[in-house]
Each structure stands twice: as structure tokens, then as C-alpha cells.
């Protein structure tokens, strides 16, 4: 399957509308094609965003209010607004203003400092096995060349202590 065809079918794939051979073909293609995997992820995120939006009911009387305001005479512009309209009505001035704004936005976005917000803490599981798995996983990582074994020690130790604490609380019926 070529990427163009796969990309066309991805929305149906995401919604689960594809069945049988077509779905298998997409599955196979996605396993092999990094480009389409990324495309699928983008579409999946977009779908999640769309799904997250709650429908909003307009307040009662909104349309009547809008009609009423349209029919009212336009209020006189303030001095600042008059200056703004006069200045940016000319295309060259508007383009210059946009360029300055784009430069400021780029400067803010390209700030090389690391993000200030810490990672959102996820719930710590009251789970003995997961902590045991972490212990095992960390020991395996400690075997790899270039591993930071000094940093892995505390992780391994606390994971096992958590195991023991969990065992004791289960034994005590807590």
C-alpha cells in the first residue's frame, strides 16, 4: 500500500470504520512506514482535541441582542482607535506591524531555556508487582554500557522497600 492511499484511509481507520482486509493492510503498512505512523499520531491527537471540546449552548436572547446592537448607530471611535485604523489601513504599515509581531513571537517561542513547569506528577501506584518490575528493569539498565549506576541505586532500593512495605501492610490487613 502506498502512503497516499494509507493517509486517505487513516481517518476511517481511527474511527474504527475499516474492517477486514483494508484494516489489515493499514496495520501492515503502519508497522513498516514511520511517516504514516507519525501521520496517524497527529490525526489521533487532533481527534482527541476535537472530542475534548464540549458543545456550548448559546445563552437565551443572544440573537435578539445581536440584532439590536447592529441596528444601533455606530459609537464614535476613541482617539487611539482612530490612530490605529489610520496607521494600519496602509498595506506597508500593516506589513511592518506584522513583521514586528512575528519577530516577537519567534523570539518568545525560540527561548532556549528548559520549560519551567515540572512534569505533572502521576499517581504512585500501591502496587507491589510494578515496583518489583521497576527493580528488575533498573537492574537490567544498570548492566548497559554507559549506564549511570550511581543514580540507579536509589531507584532500585526504594522500589524494593516499597515492595516490602506493601507486603507488611497486606500482612497487617491494612
Amino acid at each position, binding site marked *: 500500500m502506498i502512503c497516499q492511499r494509507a493517509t486517505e484511509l487513516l481517518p476511517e481507520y481511527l474511527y474504527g470504520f475499516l474492517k477486514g482486509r483494508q484494516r489489515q493492510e493499514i496495520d501492515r503498512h503502519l*508497522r513498516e512506514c*514511520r511517516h504514516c505512523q507519525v501521520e496517524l*499520531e497527529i490525526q489521533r491527537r487532533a481527534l*482527541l482535541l476535537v472530542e475534548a471540546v464540549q458543545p456550548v449552548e448559546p445563552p437565551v436572547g443572544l440573537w435578539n441582542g445581536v440584532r439590536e446592537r447592529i441596528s444601533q448607530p455606530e459609537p464614535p471611535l476613541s482617539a487611539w482607535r482612530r490612530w490605529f485604523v489610520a496607521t494600519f489601513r496602509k498595506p506597508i504599515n500593516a506589513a511592518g506591524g506584522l513583521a514586528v509581531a512575528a519577530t516577537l513571537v519567534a523570539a518568545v517561542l525560540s527561548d532556549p531555556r*528548559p*520549560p519551567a513547569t*515540572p*512534569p505533572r*506528577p*502521576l*499517581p*504512585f*501506584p*500501591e*502496587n*507491589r*508487582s*510494578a*515496583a*518489583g*518490575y*521497576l527493580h*528488575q*528493569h*533498573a*537492574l*537490567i*539498565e*544498570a*548492566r*548497559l*554500557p*554507559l*549506564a*549511570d*549506576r*550511581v*543514580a*540507579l*541505586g*536509589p*531507584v*532500585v*532500593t*526504594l*522500589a*524494593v*522497600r516499597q*515492595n*516490602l512495605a506493601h*507486603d507488611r501492610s497486606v500482612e497487617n490487613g491494612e
Partner: protein
Amino acid sequence: MSPSRARFALVVGGTALVLFGIVVWSQVMRPWRAARLLEQAAAADGKVPYRATAKTKVLYGSDVLESEAKIASDGDGKSAIRYEGGSLDGVAMGNDGARVWRYDPRAKRVYTSPPPISATSPLGQKHVDLILSNYRVTEEGREDVAKRPAYRILLTPKQPGANSRRLWIDRETNIILASEERDSQGHLVAKTVFDSIDYDRPPSPKELKAPPPQVAPRKRHSERFIGVKFTPAELSKEIGFTVRVPSYVPEGYVADGSYLYHCPECHETASETRYTNGMDSFSLFQGREVCDAHGKGGHVSRVGNRQVVSWKHGDDQFCVIGSLSLEELKRIAASLPGGSAAAPQAR
């Protein structure tokens, strides 16, 4: 050709040559040099005798753990790390050449696991090659660490979602004097910095010895299989259920084998199938009656500094754990039986 034209051609040609040299140096020679530094650092691990003190910071759950440690290496493959102060006081880890041991004074127990992979062995070389194929290695500059001049090397993952590393490598001995790990968002996961290092006083054998355990370790009925590499099919026969493997594996990761996992505390047995990109790894655990706190609906958590996705499917309990991004772990989960139902709820 007139003299002025010849002079002009000389200036243009010279400038082009200098620019070409800069491009070759920055695009070819510098990465090549950084990769060689990394190889030398991997090869020096365990081969240089020293004593050192270090401070380490590591993310654990939502907390940052800080501890101090004394490190000793005899240059012959044996080493020991002893933690001092705080809740880790008295904890020690070491490598006696045949196994990795870890002692916890609270548990009064010595835990053992297979020894580190030597970078000079064929398996170790394979791991170093994997690192070089999965990370862009760049030399960022030079800095002093523990009063020693060091190269600062950055390892940027080529695949999204993996953690980056920064290493400070001693310019004379190639020992790693500091190490920093950040997740794909740039948040610190772990950092270790040597405060001091002494190459002139090698440690005594006593300093490298594991403390004797006061509590005898429980006997493990499958002890002979610990550390033995199986194929999934072989392990399925041994463990009594079909060991599953994910159909999606992130780019750059290769299978490292399937192993029998035996919980040292509760004797529960599970299969562990490991994948690595040379620097990081993720493991898929599969067992029966092991993840009792996790329901069928799927569960995502952070254990220590690692993300975990776990779920139940029929009689099987699955748990994927690794330093990959949560998105990647969920994709791995989704390629396993029942994992697609667990992963969306786990977002």
C-alpha cells in the same frame, strides 16, 4: 589572466576552501571524534582504578531524591558504590566480576543480578554500535568536573520520545565524571556529578566486598533460570503460558531476549521480554496473578523514574515499563492482546 583577476580567483578559491574545511570539520570530523570519545568512555568502564565521591539526583515518583555516594573501582572489573546520609545511608551496590550485588541495611539482605555488559565484549560492542546508530553524538565543549578537565558530550536520540543524555568524560582517563538524563520534554530524570576523584590510591579488596546478609535470602525454585536468555517460544514452554511479544517496537530498539522474572520477595513468576536501543530499554512483563492492583480497564503510572502501562487480558497480566515517552509505551501496549483497550483509558 590579469594579476587582479588572479588575485580575485585566489581569494575566492581560498575562501571556498576554508568554508569547505569548516563544513567537513563540523559535519564529519566532530561527530566522528565525539563517537570515538564515547567508545573510549565505554571501554574504560571498570578498567581504571579510582576512588571518588559523587552527588546524585534522581526523579522518583513526583519527588527528587538526592544522595551522596562513595565510588571505588579496582580497574579489574570490580567496583562498589556506597551511599551515605539520608534514607539511603548504608545502602551499597557493587560488581564482584561475576555478579552485581546490592545491599540494603533495612532489609538486611544482599540482592544479586547478572554482571554489567563489558563494552569490550562482542555483546558490549553491539550495544555501543546500537547507541551510535540511535543517537546523534556531539561534542559540546570542555568543562572541569571534580577538578579534572572533561569533554562534554551530548547524546540526542534520533527517534522521538527517547531520553537524551549528557556525559562529561575525563580527558585523560576516559572515566565518566558526570552524567545527566533528560526526558523528551527536557525535564531532568537523573544526574550524577563526581565531587572528587583520586586515581592514585586504588581501593582495597575489603572496600569492594559485599556486606554479609543478616537475613538469609529466600530460595528461588527457578534460580537456575535467572539471567538465562530464552526465545519467547522456549520461555513459553518453561513458564506454562504463551509469551507474547509486541507487534509494534519503536524504531531503533531491538529484542534483547526473553527471561524468567522471579520476584525476590513473593516468589511470583512472570516472563520478561526486553528491548534496547543500546542506552535505554523497555521491558514487557507478562504473568498470571501478578498485577493484582490493576483492573481490566488499564492503568498508567510512574514508578520511580519510569512510566508503566499495565492491563489484564483474560488470564494474562501485562506490564510495559521503560524510559520511553508515555505515547510510545501506549503504542507498544496497543500492539499486544487487550492493550488497545487499556491504552486509551490510560491517557
